[in-house]
């Protein structure tokens, strides 16, 4: 925790809690009777409130408190969580988030309006009170109602204050149940030197003079019951009748010392007075005789929850992981050098060690990469809200289905994916899904459906966004492309080729633009983002049945499989994922100098001579090799002197000084310590294409 701004820690924690809260609220919309969901929403709220107060977000705490109070009736099962109520609750959640993340941007008025809404919903059906589960409160009471109250002994775990729980609030809540007699027990307080000021040392004995039932007391402690020892025993009538409620919270006037009844001083006097004191209230004397029903609540019940926590996670700063990855990269490089050294010598034992280290390094690399992996579900969760809101705003009922939430992807990739996916999903709802009338007319279900799925496929992850809407209007896209002069009128193009125009910058089928999205607008940005992640994007559509967008993404950004080649003296890496095949440059192809086209099984493929691009010195090898690379549909050949082989490439990004270098995407260090540049496939393909075009022009001239 040291070195980190605690407020920042709170923000991070809160943002996770918001996800939990949002997820629970949205689920609640579908399964209004699921108590577990209500509880988890409530827990999240409560923690936000507690930590908010602890970190000085007083507004957050007070607003959340109100929210919680309003929502309490839902929790008690007194009102059902309707869609409207959930929408308001989501708005309230957004407001709290704004309060935390950017307090300046919000206004109290908004908060008040939301609270009014909430209260309206919550109290609207008060008279009717369609009680779902009332079994709770009064039912249990009669049997125990003879007793005059409860005797409680509270002991909290030492870390409880750090969680933002405040025992004083709990005591206050207890006092709401009836007249309370609170006695702090101070003998647990250590000397200064032994003290951790954030630990909780105080314990309390409470006599609650109210014939409330045990559940009511449990309710007060429901959020901390795992972290405390609560001993409950009933008080009998015979016991001293409720002393005048000494402890009245709002009472400003302190009770004069003289009126203090003796027991208090006695009970609290642990450090000074005689010993039995601390024990007396606990259970021993009158209470125990009366009805030894004292139960030690927390242990059994908390067991299950502990188990959940057993799968412990550690929050690590992202930079540290990156740093670790860097170090592992260095290690892999050093290991490669060692292997090379060992293989050139004849010392067997060194060879064995080199192999051992190679094995360790590669498993270390895998583990480290694994540590950076995050299940994509964390990302999917965010879109449920998006779909919920859009579907409401556009009044298109949409069912949102996700699958493959467990699929893991590199953390940085997940972050990069958020924006493109938002865009794709918006498109799908706004333009993919037809309005209800059209759907009914076409004999489809009224409710549209959007599927977001992620699956592993080899070293790639496929993320698909699929809607069951109307599909792409190929004719319109074509018309637009012709209008914009992207294709000649009447040119023969496959549907697939036509759809590619959607990714063209500034391309949009104008009539369809709405406030939310216009299919085409921004698709170029999506495509670029995906390509920057070394991924690809693909569209497929079936008229009347829907559109599927498929994103293919590499598992990680840090290490790639590369093909090591040599051009003149220099060595370069081509990402293996882009390599289609390697062929020899035949004498015939050589002769076609100037035209730079290869004949690959009947297809003409333009090629680039890397020697020319890199201005390599020295004589070229006699047998030049061609590596066919591709981005999507375009194939380009690269002519090199030699293909050396596979290479596990740890990518080092180029420094800012080299930011204008386009044909290289990064660099890596080879086994012998020399550097090799990594070719940027997309750029090379573009380069080849522009050359082809130039040739066309010069030939035409």
């Amino acid at each position: 925790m040291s070195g980190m701004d605690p407020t920042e820690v709170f923000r991070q924690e809160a943002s996770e809690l918001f996800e939990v809260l949002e997820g629970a609220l949205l689920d609640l919309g579908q399964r209004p009777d699921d108590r577990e969901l209500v509880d988890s929403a409530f827990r999240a709220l409560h923690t936000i409130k507690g930590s908010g107060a602890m970190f000085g977000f007083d507004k957050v705490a007070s607003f959340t408190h109100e929210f919680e109070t309003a929502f309490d009736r839902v929790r008690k099962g007194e009102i059902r969580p309707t869609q409207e109520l959930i929408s308001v609750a989501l708005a309230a959640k957004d407001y709290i988030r704004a309060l935390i993340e950017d307090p300046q941007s919000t206004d109290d008025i908004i908060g008040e309006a939301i609270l009014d809404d909430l209260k309206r919903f919550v109290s609207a059906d008060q008279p009717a009170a369609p009680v779902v589960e009332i079994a709770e409160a009064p039912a249990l009471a009669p049997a125990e109602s003879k007793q005059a109250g409860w005797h409680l002994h509270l002991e909290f775990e030492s870390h409880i204050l750090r969680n933002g729980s405040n025992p004083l609030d709990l005591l206050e809540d207890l006092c709401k149940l009836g007249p309370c007699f609170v006695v702090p027990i101070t003998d647990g307080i250590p000397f200064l030197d032994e003290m951790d000021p954030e630990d909780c040392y105080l314990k309390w004995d409470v006599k609650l003079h109210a014939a409330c039932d045990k559940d009511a007391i449990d309710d007060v402690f429901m959020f901390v019951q795992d972290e405390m020892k609560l001993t409950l025993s009933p008080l009998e009538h015979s016991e001293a009748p409720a002393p005048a409620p000494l402890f009245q919270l709002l009472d400003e006037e302190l009770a004069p010392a003289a009126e203090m009844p003796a027991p208090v001083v006695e009970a609290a006097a642990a450090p000074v007075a005689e010993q039995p004191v601390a024990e007396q209230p606990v259970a021993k004397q009158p209470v125990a005789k009366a009805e030894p029903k004292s139960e030690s609540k927390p242990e059994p019940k908390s067991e299950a929850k502990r188990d959940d926590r057993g799968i412990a996670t550690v929050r690590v700063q992202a930079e540290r992981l990156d740093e670790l990855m860097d170090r592992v990269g260095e290690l892999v490089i050093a290991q490669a050098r060692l292997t090379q050294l060992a293989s050139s010598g004849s010392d067997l034992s060194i060879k064995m060690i080199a192999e051992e280290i190679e094995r360790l390094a590669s498993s270390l690399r895998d583990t480290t990469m694994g540590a950076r992996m995050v299940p994509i579900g964390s990302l999917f969760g965010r879109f449920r809200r998006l779909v919920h809101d859009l579907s409401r705003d556009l009044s298109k009922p949409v069912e949102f289905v996700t699958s493959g939430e467990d699929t893991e992807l590199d953390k940085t990739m997940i972050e990069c994916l958020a924006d493109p996916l938002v865009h794709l999903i918006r498109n799908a709802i706004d333009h993919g899904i037809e309005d209800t009338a059209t759907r009914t007319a076409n004999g489809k279900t009224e409710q549209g459906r959007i599927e977001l799925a992620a699956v592993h496929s080899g070293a790639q992850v496929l993320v698909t966004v699929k809607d069951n809407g109307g599909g792409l209007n190929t004719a319109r896209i074509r018309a637009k492309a012709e209008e914009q002069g992207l294709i000649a009128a009447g040119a023969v193009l496959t549907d697939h080729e036509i759809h590619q125009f959607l990714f063209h910058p500034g391309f949009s089928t104008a009539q369809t633009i709405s406030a939310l999205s216009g299919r085409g607008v921004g698709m170029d940005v999506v495509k670029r983002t995906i390509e920057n992640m070394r991924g690809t994007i693909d569209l497929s559509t079936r008229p009347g049945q829907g559109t599927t967008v498929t994103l293919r993404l590499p598992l990680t950004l840090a290490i790639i499989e590369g093909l090591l080649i040599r051009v003149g003296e220099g060595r370069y890496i081509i990402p293996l994922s882009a390599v289609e095949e390697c062929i020899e440059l035949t004498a015939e192809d050589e002769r076609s100098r100037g035209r730079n086209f290869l004949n690959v099984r009947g297809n003409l493929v333009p090629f680039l001579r890397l020697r020319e691009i890199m201005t390599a010195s020295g004589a070229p090898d006699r047998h030049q090799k061609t590596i066919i690379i591709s981005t999507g549909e375009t194939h380009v050949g690269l002519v090199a002197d030699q293909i050396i082989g596979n290479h596990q490439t740890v990518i080092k990004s180029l420094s800012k000084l080299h930011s204008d270098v386009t044909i290289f995407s990064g660099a890596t260090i080879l086994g012998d310590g020399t550097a090799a540049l990594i070719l940027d496939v997309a750029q090379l393909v573009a380069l080849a294409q522009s050359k082809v075009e130039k040739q066309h022009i010069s030939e035409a001239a």
Partner: protein
Amino acid sequence: MALNPTEPKWSLRLPADCSIAAIRNVYELIREAFGRQERLEIDCSSVDKADVTSIQLLLSTAKTGEAQGRPVVLTSFSQSLRNTLRRAGFASEAMIDQHFPQKKDGT
């Protein structure tokens, strides 16, 4: 918060925020003052935010002072601190007195 070296007995004024968010600093402050002075006077008049940790710290200070035979005097409890004490069950002056034997109201 400031130590006033001109007075024979040193007075430590607690900062406004003595809640858990700031308690570690307050703790260090008190420990430091403890290490320095024979007679320690802690002025609680500006305490504006207090919680369980504040109470515990003061209790521990009083206890430690007593055990070491060094006078620790707590003066001028602020209203906020009083409220917190009362919420924690230190319901009366008598109880507060008893836990903080050397309290002086200073008023």
